[in-house]
């Protein structure tokens, strides 16, 4: 009887089980991922070159992609330039890490404590839309022209977005999942650990991603406005390039800043897709 039942169920499962589409060749899928981006790049470079050829601006103000990438190639081997990239990335990572810690802690506290929510819930949303560079003059007054002022601006730019992402994730947890957790005996912090925080993860990652974008922006603005010490950060080098009317160098650095932004953003994109795949929220061909 029992085995008969099991066999019947197994047969049924075979019918019911969702069939996974056969995985595509890794090479083919990499190519299908790559070619639209390459095509876009070619179009951008072509438009850029075309504008240069029209002679709208002299070469020393708007150089073409050729000289800029040549300059970039030279820069990459240059110790000072590499040091600048290292300085900027270090600031970005430290500032962002602190922002993640503060934003996450603030998000959890505000979500957990009703009074805090009423008091500063909407303030967090307001802070998100505040251009963080507006804080920079205050930061200079408070801390002087140094790295602390830059970190202050980076954190104020990124932390509200991270807290906001977490908060909105907590708010949008399916009530049914919370009931399931309570029926299983999860209460208070346990409910947070096992149900609410994992359920809020997609929105939290969205907040982390937005937080990174704000941090990177604030850092660049801070580095360009506030020349700190004698360190050759990327923002500082861009400002020097302008002062010396070195347009090739200026554009080369812009390319570097753009590429760093894209690479890190794509890391978040990968994380986001991994989560959505696990949750079954991806289309079959995505």
């Amino acid at each position, binding site marked *: 009887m*029992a085995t008969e*039942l*099991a066999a*019947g*169920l*197994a047969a*049924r*499962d075979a019918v*019911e*089980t*969702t069939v*996974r589409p056969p995985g595509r060749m890794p090479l083919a899928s990499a190519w299908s991922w790559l070619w639209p981006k390459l095509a876009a790049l070619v179009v951008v470079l072509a438009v850029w070159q075309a504008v240069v050829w029209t002679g709208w601006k002299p070469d020393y103000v708007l150089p073409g992609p050729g000289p800029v990438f040549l300059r970039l190639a030279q820069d990459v081997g240059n110790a000072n330039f590499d040091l600048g990239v290292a300085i900027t990335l270090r600031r970005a990572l430290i500032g962002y890490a602190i922002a993640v810690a503060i934003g996450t802690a603030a998000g959890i506290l505000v979500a957990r404590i009703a009074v805090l929510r009423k008091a500063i819930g909407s303030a967090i949303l307001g802070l998100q839309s505040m251009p963080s560079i507006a804080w920079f003059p205050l930061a200079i007054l408070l801390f002087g022209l140094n790295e602390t002022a830059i970190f202050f601006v980076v954190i104020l730019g990124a932390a509200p977005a991270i807290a906001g992402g977490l908060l909105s994730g907590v708010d949008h947890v399916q009530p*049914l*999942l919370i*009931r*399931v957790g*309570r*029926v*299983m*005996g*999860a209460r208070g912090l*346990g409910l947070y650990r*096992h*149900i609410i925080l*994992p*359920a809020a*993860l997609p929105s939290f990652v969205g907040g982390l991603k937005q937080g990174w974008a704000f941090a990177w922006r604030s850092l660049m603005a801070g580095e360009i406005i506030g020349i700190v010490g004698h360190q050759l950060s990327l923002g500082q080098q861009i400002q020097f390039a302008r002062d010396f009317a070195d347009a090739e160098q200026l554009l080369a650095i812009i390319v570097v800043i753009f590429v760093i932004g894209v690479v890190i953003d794509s890391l978040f994109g990968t994380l986001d897709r991994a*989560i959505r795949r*696990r*949750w*079954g*929220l991806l289309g079959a061909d995505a």
Partner: protein
Amino acid sequence: MSNILQLSEKHSLSVERLTMAFPHDGRLLLALQGVTLEVEQGELVCIVGASGSGKSTLLNILAGLDEPSAGRAHVHGRVALMFQEAALLPWLTAAGNVELALELRGVRRPQRVDLARELLHRVHLDGFEKRLPHELSGGMKQRVALARALAQDADVLLMDEPFGALDAITRDRLHEELERIWTDTGLTILFVTHNAREAVRLGDRVLVFTSRPGRVGHEVKVDLPRPRSLDSPELAVIAGRITDRLKHEMSGRHDGN
């Protein structure tokens, strides 16, 4: 007072003059009014009623999720609740969902894996331990939910139309499975459905709920031998009588809406 304590010794679950009201459009809406019922230990009792008869509300109160407006609900021992949707946690595998219930019950990590596998085996999901919820069919999800409810090692299992969204064949299989598990474990089960046949198929007794406000309008004892077939004429006769009652009940209330 002593009377009630005696009742809870004998009964696994007792509900006395339970009333539940929700504020709605500035008025109080009565979901349950004066519900009284008792379920003996090891009994499988079905509640059948039209939608809006407060059946889910009753289960939520019994599971401790909601507080009643008046009256008392007492469950002897631990209680588990299965919802109409499987409500599996989408970030955990089938085994992970069961293991979480074990963890929250206080089972130590080394034992959890084996126990979860055993529970999934009990609902015939061997080999599906590593699957994520979205990789399972509706019937399989409900079986994981059943395994998860069993993992709570509860004395009383409350089921809120758990098979309502499944196709007839899958539901048939799950009836057999539930009956087998009930026989093996001696669980007390309170099973809510809007399907009279399902209620007669499973229940030792069937309680027919009236609508708005919900209360026990009628009780039917089902003396058919087990396992019962949904298609047997004897079952159909009893289910037919219950359906008539429900229809009568609904038409009587129709003008009130």
